[in-house]
Structures are given as structure tokens and as C-alpha cells.
């Protein structure tokens, strides 16, 4: 038997009678798929919520702490002659 004949024999073997598709398979797949979509939506919402919260906290902190203003000096220059 040459290569093409052998491959044809294997193809015939693979064409065994097809299994019956169970009726509940579609319903199960849709149910799981819906759950996956719901989870993705929830995760996306949670991510946006956290992002917004972080932005608000950063803005409030910056407005109160004003990190760009030079802090007042705590040391006084030495006074020698008075």
C-alpha cells in the first residue's frame, strides 16, 4: 500500500457513524456562555469603578496636600551679630 492509499484507508476509518447530538447540549452551551458574558460585564464594571475611585482619591489628595508647592523651610539661618 502506498501513502495515498493508506491515508484514504485512515480517512474511511475516521468517517465512522456520527454520534447523536444530545438535545441539552445547546442549552448548556448557551447557559455557560451567558454566565461568561455576565461575569465579563461585571468585571469590566468593577474595573471602571476602581479606576474612577482611584482618580477621585488622587484629585482630592492633590488638592489638599498640594505636593507641587515648595514646603516652608524649617531651619533658620544662624544669627551672629546683634
Amino acid at each position, binding site marked *: 500500500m502506498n501513502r495515498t492509499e493508506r491515508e484514504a484507508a485512515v*480517512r474511511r476509518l*475516521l468517517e465512522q457513524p456520527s*454520534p447523536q*447530538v444530545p438535545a441539552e447540549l*445547546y442549552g448548556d452551551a448557551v447557559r455557560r456562555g451567558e454566565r461568561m458574558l455576565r461575569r465579563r460585564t461585571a468585571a469590566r464594571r468593577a474595573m471602571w469603578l476602581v479606576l474612577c475611585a482611584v482618580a477621585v482619591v488622587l484629585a482630592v489628595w492633590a488638592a489638599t496636600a498640594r505636593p507641587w508647592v515648595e514646603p516652608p523651610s524649617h531651619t533658620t539661618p544662624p544669627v551672629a551679630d546683634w
Partner: protein
Amino acid sequence: MQERQASQGARRAREFEAFVAGAAGRLLHVATLLTAEVPDANPHARRLLTLALAHTYASWDRLRGEDPYARTRERLVTRFAHETWYRHGGRARRQPSGALAALAPRERLVAVLRLYEGMAEDQTAALLGLPADRVRVLCDRAVAALARPAYRPAPAVRGPEVAPS
């Protein structure tokens, strides 16, 4: 907004139902060949297909013209490869009894994709993450084993095939 989402959901359900009605038979056949179960007792194949179809359903709105059949088959194949890679020797599995029971899982994968699905060699290699000449060797080995009906491998032969490198 709510209305648009509802209509999109209805459209998705309709299209997905048509897709499953057309493709589930062939996909279940592929899954059953992969798991080497007999056609009327194939719980593992059904489970693989249900999970793959659920993923296709969840990403239906983002397919953008991509073939849902190819997408589902890809999911099916990667999930099967992943399971056989990580579960080997762990949980006790049922002895396969289908048409391809004589082959190792990876030989089954290559044989089904190349000969039943008619996928090109380089596409199969890309999907399985193997070099193309490795795919050719696996396919030749599977063909040689299946064309000789008396072939039954010793149980220990599978070892190096799936050992992590």
C-alpha cells in the same frame, strides 16, 4: 441602551442557534474522535464541545467575520491538548475504546486535524504549537498505526511523548 442590548442578545441567540444546528454534529464527531470514545457513550467529548461552544457564544459579538466553526474547533483542540498534557497520570481515566484508541493523544490530534478536517500542515503546526516536520512525523506514525489493524502499542510507549521538556 437597554433596548439595543436586548435586540443584540436576541440576534446573538438566533444566529448561535442556527450555527449549533448546522455544526454541532460534525464538531461532536471531531471531539469523539479526539477522546477516542465510542459514538453513543461520549461524555468527555460532549463536555469538551459544550465548553468550546460556550466560549464561542460569549465571543459571538466580537467575531467580526471570523468563522465560528474554526473558532470553536480551535477551542476544542486546545482544551483537549491542555487536558491531556496536565492530567496525564493524575486522575485515573477510562481506557479509550473508539476508533483511534490505539493512538497517543497527540497522534490523534494530528490525525483528526490533518485527515478528517483537512487542515494544512502548517496551520495544524501553528494550532498545536509544534514544528511542521514534527506534525508530519506524527501524522505518518498515526497513518502507519491505523493502516495496520493488528497494531497495539505497549502501554509504556506513551511516556516520552508527553513528558514536559
